[in-house]
């Protein structure tokens, strides 16, 4: 069965610093992979997606993620964070029962310090 693990429940970064949020997936096949972001009191929004091809995918607001088959990972990165990036970030992948529905990691809360 496919699952998604985000090992860090909370990450604190200083404004202007670089960021990496970790995501590990378990799957016997190369999956589709997604990062979603949830700002306070809002629903989730798609940040970026990986289907195939170039392992580095670009998203909105300067975010990018890198797929690694050897490490079963799909880490999210940003070169310089802004206070407005404070949110909860979710990694997601289609679940084993069907590619048309997603299973989500537990999320990583990103806190930006001034």
């Amino acid at each position, binding site marked *: 069965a496919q699952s998604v693990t985000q090992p860090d429940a909370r990450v604190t970064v200083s404004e202007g610093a670089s960021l990496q949020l970790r995501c590990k997936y378990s799957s016997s096949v190369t999956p589709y992979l997604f990062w979603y972001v949830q700002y306070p009191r809002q629903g*989730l929004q798609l940040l970026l997606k990986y289907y195939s091809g170039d392992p580095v995918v670009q998203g909105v607001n300067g975010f990018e993620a890198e797929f690694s088959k050897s490490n079963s990972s799909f880490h999210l990165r940003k070169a310089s964070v802004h206070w407005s990036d404070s949110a909860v970030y979710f990694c997601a992948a289609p679940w084993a029962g069907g590619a048309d529905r997603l*299973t989500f990691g537990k999320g990583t809360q990103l806190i930006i310090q001034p």
Partner: protein
Amino acid sequence: DAGVTQTPRHEVAEKGQTIILKCEPVSGHNDLFWYRQTKIQGLELLSYFRSKSLMEDGGAFKDRFKAEMLNSSFSTLKIQPTEPKDSAVYLCASSPRGATGQLYFGEGSKLTVL
């Protein structure tokens, strides 16, 4: 275009009451999902519709949870009877045909059961 609309945004219920949450998906979207979000469990899939047909009825949630799609632009989630453990944010999402994993979420309905 209007996004996913969920009502009510907040609901407080007594144990044993019947609650109906409502969702209007993005116009033209083919798939509709109901998720439950809690801090401990994260996002859990409750129901999934494709072209108004029920594809996933939530497994462990079948007992007291019933989602319906009355037409392509309106869905309800009924919880009957409510229990305190149902306190959570209920998220509705829709997705266009062929866009695997690209979900558009509403802002959620926060349910508190006393």
